[in-house]
């Protein structure tokens, strides 16, 4: 085995195919990193390293993922493994089937070292809402990794996996990717099957790859993107080779800068990273265009109506009748309330209550219906802006990773999603890629958004910028 371990999935694949490294050897190295580092980082809720080792032994080196360890967020079902969603209500729940994406990854030779921590039911931006323990940012253990896919991004950043999958409902892949200094991609809604992803906001949820390079994300997308007859929102499209579509430059690309986001309060180093990246884009052959999205700032309130509404219905199934936590009451009504009260944490309850409120008689029109209309308005504006620009460049987050316990006000926490939410509302693809560090050495992430189904193009543009800024090609 060569002295230097591969840093990316692409390098790993190359080494395995050249017989310089075996999947088991790499897994053993990974195991050591996990055993040494995870007690501090706490990226995983459950590990399956012995099973992963035999999977690695059996992995075909010529398969697309060649036995590479890929971590799975614990709200995505993997048959025979626990799937807790970071919640007491599913603490002991074992999945009887696998998500389509997990099946695809396994079929492509991925090895799953464990299931990663998350904010309970993916509701949160710091992974502090996990019912079990918070995850720490490998870049600075006193800071949050972001959320809700904080376990997955921390695992990739800490070298516990070559890639990971997360779910992104309002930025839950991109925001923690930015905080941890890795790549996080939210595909076009309908490109990757949701079957087996425990639903939070069904019209917003997307499974996306988390990786150390944009190319790695593209490699993972080659495995993950496929029409699934089990998901009616999955769309049949001709297959795309996302890796082969990566271009060397941005020649002819119009990079849009959203006027209405200029005035927002962002950390100075992030504003500086935006400037550097704009210049890098121009240097790579792109032109900059100014675009206007008059209602983009309404995205946040729209999201905090639609997502809770959908979650209030989606989380009703956790009722203690068929599976999961059960607390007995005098009658069914009491049994339900006791079970759900004991099973759900505060943030989840808060969102279920908001959701039930905005859907209830007398409030539906003013809240849910209105939010649906504004969502359409924002989507229309975004679609129009993406006629005059090929991609839109924004920060991923207004700040870099904050300290654990620093943000306690839920509304303040919500407001940190301002840049990531529009892509979920409109169902367009968006990627967060590392773009330098702040004064404290914390990673900065920037975001590209593009039109629906321009996933290959988004990855290509992000790859150019990421490498121009010093990232792994």
């Amino acid at each position: 085995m060569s002295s230097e371990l591969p840093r990316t999935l692409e390098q790993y694949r190359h080494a395995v195919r050249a017989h310089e490294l075996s999947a088991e050897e790499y897994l053993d190295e990974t195991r050591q990193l996990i055993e040494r580092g995870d007690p501090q980082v706490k990226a995983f809720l459950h590990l399956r390293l012995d099973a992963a080792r035999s999977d690695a032994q059996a992995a075909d080196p010529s398969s697309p993922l060649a036995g590479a360890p890929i971590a799975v967020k614990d709200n995505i079902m993997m048959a025979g493994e626990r799937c807790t969603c970071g919640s007491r209500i599913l603490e002991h729940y074992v999945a009887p089937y696998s998500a389509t994406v997990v099946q695809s990854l396994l079929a492509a030779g991925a090895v799953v070292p464990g299931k990663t921590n998350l904010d309970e039911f993916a509701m949160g931006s710091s992974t502090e809402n996990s019912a079990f323990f918070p995850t720490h940012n490998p870049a600075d253990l006193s800071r949050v990794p972001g959320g809700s896919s904080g376990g997955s991004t921390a695992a990739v950043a800490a070298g516990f996996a070559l890639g990971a999958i997360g779910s992104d409902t309002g930025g839950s892949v991109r925001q923690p990717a930015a905080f941890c200094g890795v790549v996080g991609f939210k595909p076009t809604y309908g490109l990757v099957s949701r079957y087996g992803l425990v639903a939070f906001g069904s019209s917003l949820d997307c499974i996306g790859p988390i990786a150390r390079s944009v190319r790695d994300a593209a490699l993972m997308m080659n495995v993950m993107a496929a029409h699934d007859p089990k998901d009616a929102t999955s769309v049949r499209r001709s297959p795309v080779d996302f890796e082969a579509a990566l271009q060397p430059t941005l020649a002819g690309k119009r990079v849009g800068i959203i006027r209405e986001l200029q005035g927002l309060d962002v950390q100075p180093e992030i504003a500086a990273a935006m400037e550097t990246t704009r210049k890098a884009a121009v240097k790579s052959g792109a032109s900059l265009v100014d675009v206007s999205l008059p209602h983009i700032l309404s995205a946040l309130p729209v999201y905090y109506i639609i997502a809770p509404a959908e979650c209030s219905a989606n989380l009703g199934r956790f009722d203690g009748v068929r599976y999961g936590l059960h607390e007995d009451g005098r009658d069914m009504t009491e049994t339900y309330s006791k079970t759900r009260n004991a099973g759900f944490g505060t943030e989840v309850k808060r969102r279920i209550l908001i959701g039930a409120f905005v859907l209830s008689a007398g409030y539906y029109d003013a809240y849910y219906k209105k939010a649906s209309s504004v969502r359409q308005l924002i989507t229309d504006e975004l679609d129009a802006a993406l006629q005059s620009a090929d991609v839109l460049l924004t920060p991923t987050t207004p700040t870099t990773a904050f300290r654990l316990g620093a943000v306690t006000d839920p509304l303040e926490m919500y407001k940190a999603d301002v840049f990531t939410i529009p892509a979920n509302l409109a169902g367009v693809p968006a990627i967060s890629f590392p773009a330098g560090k702040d004064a404290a050495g914390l990673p900065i992430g920037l975001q590209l958004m593009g039109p629906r189904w321009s996933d290959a193009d988004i990855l290509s543009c992000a790859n150019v910028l990421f490498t121009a800024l010093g990232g792994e090609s």
Partner: protein
Amino acid sequence: MIIDKETLEHVASLARLEITPDEDGSLLGDLERILGYVAQLGSVDTSAIVSKRPAMTELRPDEPGEGLTREAGLGGAPAMRDGFIVVRNVMGGEDE
């Protein structure tokens, strides 16, 4: 005020959640602020907006699919007898 204690209790009962006394005050305050924040949408003119929800591209053929055995699907249920799930009597409760 958007949401009062009574409305909160009504909504909680719809969602089958209990509001415990210790979270009562803070929860109501949080919800009031969050709902107050999202209520800003009221000022957006949406009169000309047409919904563009997509349509299903294909339906499922009426052919048997893979199921689960009772054990695989319900093996973790809190109470079962003779293959049935057992729950507290709901006779006369909510009907459907």
